[in-house]
């Protein structure tokens, strides 16, 4: 079960890299960065998953003998990583807006004043 998640995460990462490497539209590059974030979040949460575990909350009335939790640490890490991913996207999109204003294009092969 988890193997599918792991492999899916690796494939998501590879897709993100592919998008970032080949797509010339800078908005698509930002989308590629987003895909990479999802891959990362998926792999972190999957590392913490535990077959048959419940949400790690001590609600006294619902706990039954023999129950166990999934790993809460990766969930906390994922929360942090989601916020960081959102910040990356926000920052990159503001830069895209400005770049479009300045260059009149979203094509990354035309946004290349700095070279050589």
């Amino acid at each position, binding site marked *: 079960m988890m193997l599918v998640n792991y492999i899916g995460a690796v494939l998501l990462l590879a897709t993100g890299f592919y998008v*970032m490497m*080949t797509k010339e539209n800078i908005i698509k590059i930002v989308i590629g960065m987003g895909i990479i974030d999802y891959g990362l979040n998926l*792999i972190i949460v999957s*590392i913490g998953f535990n077959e048959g575990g419940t949400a790690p909350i001590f609600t006294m009335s619902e706990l039954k003998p023999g129950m166990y939790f999934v790993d809460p640490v990766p969930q906390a890490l994922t929360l942090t990583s989601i916020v960081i991913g959102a910040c990356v996207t926000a*920052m990159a999109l503001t830069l895209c807006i400005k770049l479009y204003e*300045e260059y009149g294009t979203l094509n*990354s092969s035309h946004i290349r*004043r700095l070279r050589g």
Partner: protein
Amino acid sequence: MIQHFPILSIMVLFLGAFLVVLVGRSRIARTAVVSAAVLTSFALMVALIKPVMIDGQIISYWMGNWAPVSGYAIGIGIEVDALSLFFGLLVSLAVMLSGFYSFKYITQDDSPDLFFTLYLMLAGGVMGIVLSGDLFNIFVMLEVMTFAAVALTAFRSWNPNAREAAFKYLVVGSLGSTFVLLGTALVYGQCHTLNLAQISGLLSVNGINPTMTFAFALLFTGFGVKAFMTPFHPIAADAHAAAPSSVSVLISGVFTKTGVYGIIRVSYFLFKSMGMSSMQTGLVFIGCVSMFVCVTMALNQHDFKRLLAFHSISQIGYILTSLGLCSAIGIAGGLYHAINHTLFKGLLFLTAGAVLYATGTTKLEKLGGLARRMPQTAALFMVGAFSISGIPPFNGFVSKWMIYQAAYEKAAETGSIGYAFVTVIAVVTSVLTLASFVKVGQSVFFGELPVELENVKETPLSMRIPMWIMAALCLLTGVLPGLMQQYIINPAVRATLDYKGYIDAMMGEGYAAAHLADTVPLAEAKYTFAGAWDPAFWLVLFVIVLLGVTVAMMIGKSGRGAATAIADDKHDTFFGGEKNTFSQVGGGDLFWGFKYNFRRYLNVMGNAHSGVVNDYVTWGVIDLALIIVYCFIFM
């Protein structure tokens, strides 16, 4: 009390950042807040020299008192050993000097409150990285640092290149963060903990399996992005050129050091891969490529700051090379070069900022003859150029000598021709560095003064003082290497090579002995110097040469030589402001022969630095793939 110092020196920077937002437009309050923050941070770091560097104490500090339970580190730890403190001192020193410089420098831009907020965030993030003892926390602070650096790169709204540079920087930088986070996740999957000391212990018990090899490659490449090692260096050049100069100081002197610090922690401490000769070869190879490629790229530049940026990465190549040699003198040379790099590179960027402040441009073709108008800046530039080119008695000489010696000893020890070749590359790079600084000096400070720059004035005193301090430190660290080694470098070298104390301080006494039983130290933390290199002699020699030049100059001016040579523009060279009538080649084109002969190579490199962000990502991913393959084969 003393155990609170590291966290306070981080938090004081962040608090300063938020207070700057709150005080808003009041200039005096802002200056006071920023000065207080950077001074307190530096003072707290200096106060730690005595216990950590001299007494050998290691400060471990658990956030919220969550000390390890049943041998597992449940909280986030801050740990300061000599290596962390070494980088902490470096960071806080550069932040302080550059911060004082920016008070005046930034008056040419709007919204200084935002500038100082981001500036302090960048500083706090870097401090957070080098003092942290937790892998995920390092990632978080890495992101704080990256965002602040990206925003500061885009800060100059009047610079049309700033947004482009920032976007490239953000894309490639987030690629590096991705690698670091993926590596962290895989390490958590293996060790079920995020504490550096515990990971180090558990990894040597469990051994290296394929997952950990993959994680190592990812972490190494991720920190390599932060250090701008070779396939990632174009973004560094863009960012340095677009950012305000005081931020360039931080990006080159401080930001890259976190990458170096991360590489040391990952390869020496976490995975202990530096014991393998294959990994040493790999790091030395990366360092040499960075060193050589960037110095040749620098020869071809026409922008002052962009040229300095390429030199910055070239010097990082020196540091990586000598760290890859994995002998005591190699590490000592690398760390010494790290501190020198921060000082002389900071000085050079600040002089570039002074030129930009006074003239409004950094194009080499548009500058010239500034030595007469800005004599102090010119002198400071000379100090920086001498230091970076490794001319005694300045500090670059000492560390470069140590690196040459380390490479040569490694060659003698292993009997491999490759390491001897490394020495050759290092020396050649040093020569090329000197060559390109001759070019910069000729085209910025000497030669003919353009008409537009007639009214240029020397920069204000508040900008010159930090530069003079840096220049003095350049000379001091060059003249007093014994003192530096005894109190700063050698403890850090010992901490790099013998990390059992670090693990014990973090996880409790005996943890290292239980987990690292059969690990032998990589090398003995002792070294001696070869050759006649007592810096005092060099200082005396330097003073004699300086006196000789002065005397010759005075004799020439006294008119005695007028009988044989008529005083005209032709004999007026090298003090700035002379006419270009008698020189066929302008300063910016000084090495036309070299450029012509190497035009194929330079064309290839110029095309590789295409400026398209997709290409940079592609080089990065290809580099990652190469490192993965290398690690899977040899590790």
